[in-house]
């Protein structure tokens, strides 16, 4: 047991300690009473007037530049008026006051009142954006007398090249519920909540399509805080220094495209609708990526009206659609190089072997026709490519068989989606037995192989894939890595494309393509001369059937031109590279419903190619120059 004396002393001291502690607690309560009750009124006033706030400051989105540093997506200043509910007693009254100075319909006023009432009291609700200069000036002048009204300049995403890069860049918009879900799918709940809060800011936009969507994180930057002092009404009186909390702007992103070449290409299409892809054979840089007609991404930044959107959506030239990347068409005769390569690889035909073309080809109980009704006569591989003889390729395709055709097609880059770092992109179809069983539930018929042999029927490809095929032929089978993001986030499948292709075979294909534009009997003889006094272009025409030609039509003579509805006319295709003796550029062009490759597509391809060469579009991009200057090493070249 504890010594009695000790026990007594301890107990006494413990009581003293407890009493002392209680006294201290009592002191705190007294202080609380002093602050809350005695001085309560003073602090309540202070709370109302409380001046210093941190306001979320969204980051400035990074610019998107072309290969020579020309801005494709940047910013412009736009005047904006918004209303903060907690700073006014009556939102409706404030709006009526605003309506005296700028045009603001009553419906819109009601809508704003409703929107504001659903938000937190301190969140601003937009009243008008894109204020004209006069309106901005008028409102700014009166704002101090209108409670709750905030008039400010804001940075708005702008696309200085308008429609030219609509599909490549995509566009930004306020984050919708779907966007929020997508943006926060792969992050922790903390980050997700921070993102949600950020994207509710009226200045925040998120990429909806194209590079804007793919490179969202690269471009976004990091938000910060502005510290501001405000008066009793909540009006911001002055900004306090907040350099340490300033938002971090997003990074700039460089594309490999040349904005000037893109413009030339689009202008060259005129009123035609179609797509073109120009590629640097050596580096795989995509220099032009055209899909026309296009929409203006500027219209989407602040939300597009339903009426305007419907105009785009129901336009039969599908301006919303990225024809060069998302569009898949039968490759038509441009596919004949693939078929010929497959035949050489399989060893089923000697290139010198001659096939007789009487203008049609019999197989089983059916007859297949050559585009040249009277026939090509006796043709070998070279003249078959040059004259695009269908009969020759029916025969060759039959010998090769669909499985081998599919294998070779894939080596050329068909049947796979090329991940360039744009949202979208389609793989097209490389048909074979397995594909048909899965897609149609029935086995492959040999007759279908003949259609595939001339690039019709089930086979389909995008203009991008045709450009890649052409580049691989022109490079005599060397690896190629198509890319459109020069400096920015790398797409996942950022690997060079290096399926083996025999250089000897490729040289035969090149000879055939040179024949098309430059030898007697070539189908695009008029488009071989680039008009640059020397270098010629080598290419291949194609026509993609939009519908089957019926027996009656064939009997009565094929309908052409104005006789049939535009929508039923064939697509015109042309693929080419230049200069023919030292290939630098590859191009593919499709003119929707342009009828014949040599008639509409080839002249467009030739003119774009000539422009590319004249401009020297493939010269070293700006971002590589700075990169090599900084790091002392160049990542260019091979």
């Amino acid at each position, binding site marked *: 047991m504890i010594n009695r004396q000790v026990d007594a002393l301890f107990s006494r001291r413990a009581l003293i300690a407890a009493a002392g502690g*209680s006294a201290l607690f009592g002191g705190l309560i007294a202080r609380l009473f002093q602050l809350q009750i005695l001085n309560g009124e003073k602090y309540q006033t202070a709370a109302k007037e409380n001046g210093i706030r941190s306001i979320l400051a969204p980051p400035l989105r990074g610019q998107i530049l072309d290969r020579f540093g020309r801005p494709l997506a940047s910013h412009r200043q736009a005047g904006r008026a918004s209303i903060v509910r907690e700073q006014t007693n009556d939102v409706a009254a404030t709006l009526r006051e605003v309506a005296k100075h700028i045009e603001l319909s009553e419906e819109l006023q009601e809508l704003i009142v409703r929107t504001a009432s659903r938000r937190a009291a301190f969140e601003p609700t937009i009243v008008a954006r894109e204020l004209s200069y006069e309106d901005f000036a008028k409102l700014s002048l009166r704002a101090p007398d209108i409670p709750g009204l905030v008039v400010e300049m804001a940075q708005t995403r702008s696309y200085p090249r308008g429609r030219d890069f609509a599909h490549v860049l995509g566009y930004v918009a306020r984050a919708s519920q779907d966007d929020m879900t997508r943006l926060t799918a792969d992050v922790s709940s903390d980050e997700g909540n921070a993102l949600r809060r950020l994207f509710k800011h009226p200045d925040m936009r998120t990429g909806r399509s194209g590079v804007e969507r793919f490179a969202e994180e690269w471009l976004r930057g990091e938000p910060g805080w502005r510290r501001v002092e405000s008066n009793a009404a909540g009006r911001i009186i002055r900004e306090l220094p907040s350099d340490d909390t300033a938002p971090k702007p997003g990074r700039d992103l460089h594309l490999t495209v040349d904005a000037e070449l893109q413009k030339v290409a689009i202008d060259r299409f005129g009123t035609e609708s179609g797509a073109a892809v120009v590629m640097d054979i050596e580096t795989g840089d995509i220099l032009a990526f055209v899909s026309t007609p296009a929409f203006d991404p500027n219209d989407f930044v602040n939300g597009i009206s339903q009426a305007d959107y419907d105009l785009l959506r129901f336009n039969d030239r599908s301006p919303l659609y990225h024809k060069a990347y998302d569009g898949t068409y039968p490759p038509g005769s441009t596919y004949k190089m693939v078929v010929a390569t497959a035949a050489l690889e399989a060893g089923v035909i000697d290139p010198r072997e001659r096939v007789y073309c009487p203008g049609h080809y019999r197989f089983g109980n059916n007859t297949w026709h050559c585009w040249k009704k009277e026939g090509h006569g006796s043709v070998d591989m070279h003249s078959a490519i040059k004259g695009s003889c269908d009969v020759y390729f029916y025969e060759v395709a039959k010998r090769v068989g669909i499985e081998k055709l599919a294998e070779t097609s894939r080596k050329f880059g068909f049947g796979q989606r090329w991940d360039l770092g744009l949202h979208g992109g389609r793989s097209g179809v490389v048909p074979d037995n397995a594909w048909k069983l899965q897609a149609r539930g029935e086995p492959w018929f040999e007759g279908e192989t003949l259609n595939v042999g001339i690039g019709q029927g089930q086979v389909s490809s995008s203009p991008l894939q045709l450009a890649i095929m052409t580049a691989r032929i022109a490079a005599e089978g060397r690896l190629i890595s198509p890319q459109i993001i020069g400096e920015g986030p790398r797409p996942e499948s950022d690997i060079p494309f290096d399926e083996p292709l025999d250089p000897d075979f490729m040289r035969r294909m090149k000879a055939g393509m040179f024949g098309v534009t430059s030898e007697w009997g070539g189908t695009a003889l008029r488009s071989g001369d680039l008009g640059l006094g020397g270098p010629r272009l080598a290419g291949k025409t194609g026509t993609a059937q939009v519908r089957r030609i019926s027996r009656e039509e064939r009997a009565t003579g094929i309908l052409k031109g104005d006789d049939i509805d535009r929508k039923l006319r064939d697509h015109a295709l042309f693929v080419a590279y230049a200069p023919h003796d030292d290939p630098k550029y590859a191009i593919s062009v499709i003119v929707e419903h342009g009828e014949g490759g040599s008639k509409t597509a080839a002249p467009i391809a030739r003119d774009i190619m000539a422009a590319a060469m004249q401009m020297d579009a493939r010269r070293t991009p700006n971002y590589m120059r700075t990169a090599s200057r900084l790091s002392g090493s160049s990542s260019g070249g091979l």
Partner: protein
Amino acid sequence: MATAGASGLNFSRRTLFSSFTSLPWGLILLICGMAVIGVATLYSATFTNPAEADLPMRQATRLTAALLVLIFVGLVPLSVWLKLAWPAYLVTVILLIAVEFFGVTGGGAQRWLQIGPIAVQPSEFMKVTLTLALAAYYHKHWNDSSGGFLIHFPALILILVPAALIFRQPDFGTTLALFASGGVLIFLGGLYKRVIFSVAAIAVASVPLVYMFVLQDYQRERVDTYLAQLTGQSVNVMDDGYQIEQAKIAIGSGGWTGKGYMEGTQSQLDYIPEQHTDFILTVVAEEFGFLATSGVLLLWMLILGMGMVIAMRAASLFGRFAAVGAVATVAFYILFNVAMVLGLLPVVGVPLPLLSYGGTVMLTTAGCFGLVCAVHLGRDEALHGK
């Protein structure tokens, strides 16, 4: 089994189940009640900021874990704690020395020790283990009241060693807390009154010297700010003074009954930095007013008072000192924190147990009350076996 040592005997006399049912459940319930108030307040403090939306849930999870720690500590027999007292103290001092060399710096001070995936703050453990060590010391050496004041020297050294190490980190708040709760134990140990008065006099006299020669710049700034606002000068709004001023506005504007749950404009508009950690009381004060806030303080007094009653009933000196030390440790957290929030003390960065968001203080609190529970269960043991 019956012939086992004293501690073994104690343990085998009770079954684990009967120990469990004999825990001071009234005390534990009050603690849980305080924790619920804490989570609700935290919810109000964080709900406008989606980035902090899951803090209340995390806090609730931690509280549950802390409750388990409390019960576990409480169920360990007092005799075992007596045996563990010295080793625990030594290990913690070694950890403090390790912080000196391998510590992780955070917020301008080197307090954390990274052990594998977890970061521990040995200075927090020190609060519990110092209490244990002092209790064990007085248990063994204080046999009659005539021991003279020399027996308090070793106790003072027990306090000074860790206090010096923690001061070097630097962590002024924890150093003060160690001196305060250690001082309470020495006071209970029967230190002569005249010594107490002399020490107090010397302490007051040395304040200016400490200010000029011991404090770090940032600590000195805090004291300056504190003095400035105490005397009613306007302070630099961007610094600590801003925090105190905003806290005072939040608290003061609460009035008798407050602005209503989640209606506090100060709290909801992010005026107060750290309002979910050290300044959580501002949210209670603003939203629930004077009545509720003083109610919270009274509830704390009740909890601490129950701890004191348990201490007084213990048969062993170890039990008494341990329980009082534990109560004092928590009490000083509260006193420092509330005084700081109310602008009576400089901002020293002490959290409010069970209310502030944060895991370390919760663990210390759970350890302290666990110890009180262990004293309660072992109140009849004299612990002479040693």
